[in-house]
């Protein structure tokens, strides 16, 4: 029995963030979670929309004007961005589940693609909304 065995530190149970170099696949992983939690709130807003519709024209008009207010539009923009991201990255995860695209090069490339897609799709959707008079 040596002294070293007595003072041995507990080994870390999981990789600790402080010694890891920040890379894009880490970013896409945590953003998937964050947008998922954001969309949780979005689904509650959607449920509120359904309830307001069932309550009648006045409640519906009030709810719709809330969603169309400046704060509402910021929330809608965030939710749209969360949805396009979570959708694209979710498909990326489903492809990984089949065993494809998991090597470093593909994972980095698909990460860039997913981020670019989410931004482009969100801007396009808001462009369409502006053109069709939705906002």
């Amino acid at each position, binding site marked *: 029995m040596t002294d070293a065995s007595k003072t041995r530190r507990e080994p870390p149970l999981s990789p600790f963030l402080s010694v890891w170099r920040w890379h894009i696949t880490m970013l896409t992983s945590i953003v998937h979670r964050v947008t998922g939690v954001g969309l949780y709130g979005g*689904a509650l807003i959607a*449920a509120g929309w359904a309830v307001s519709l069932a309550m009648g024209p006045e409640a519906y008009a009030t709810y719709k004007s809330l969603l169309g207010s400046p704060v509402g539009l910021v929330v809608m923009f965030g939710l749209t961005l969360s949805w396009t991201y979570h*959708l694209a990255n979710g498909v990326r995860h489903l492809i990984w589940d089949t065993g494809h695209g998991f090597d470093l090069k593909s994972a980095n490339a698909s990460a860039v693609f997913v981020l670019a897609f989410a931004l482009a799709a969100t801007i396009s959707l808001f462009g369409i909304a502006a053109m069709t*008079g939705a906002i």
Partner: protein
Amino acid sequence: MTSYRTPLSRARGLGAAKHGAGHWISERVTAIALVPLTVWVAYAVLRLASGDYMTAAHWVADPLNATLLVLTFAIAFLHMHAGMRVVVEDYIHKTLSKSVLLLLNLFVCGLAGALAIVSILKVAFTGAGAL
């Protein structure tokens, strides 16, 4: 004392969730269903955003729209519940706070999901004309 249990038997139930594949698979199955359903919802939001109550009520009263809305709400709330459950299990380790948050997650998803589906069905069955 020698254990005669197999390594698999000893490992079972030791994960944070106490169970395994069923949850993982249902998360994937709901995810696949939500790909077309949420794209359809985005189209619906764009359509209904420029309309008023009557536009929305008539749109929801269409059987296909009502069916897809009910399915979307049901599957989305299942998927949300599964996702939030993993988040809680990953970050909250005290048994009491973890149990409270898991229950809260279940009840919020159950209540909001049921409210949304009943509301859609009410509009679908009684229509805008009932008002």
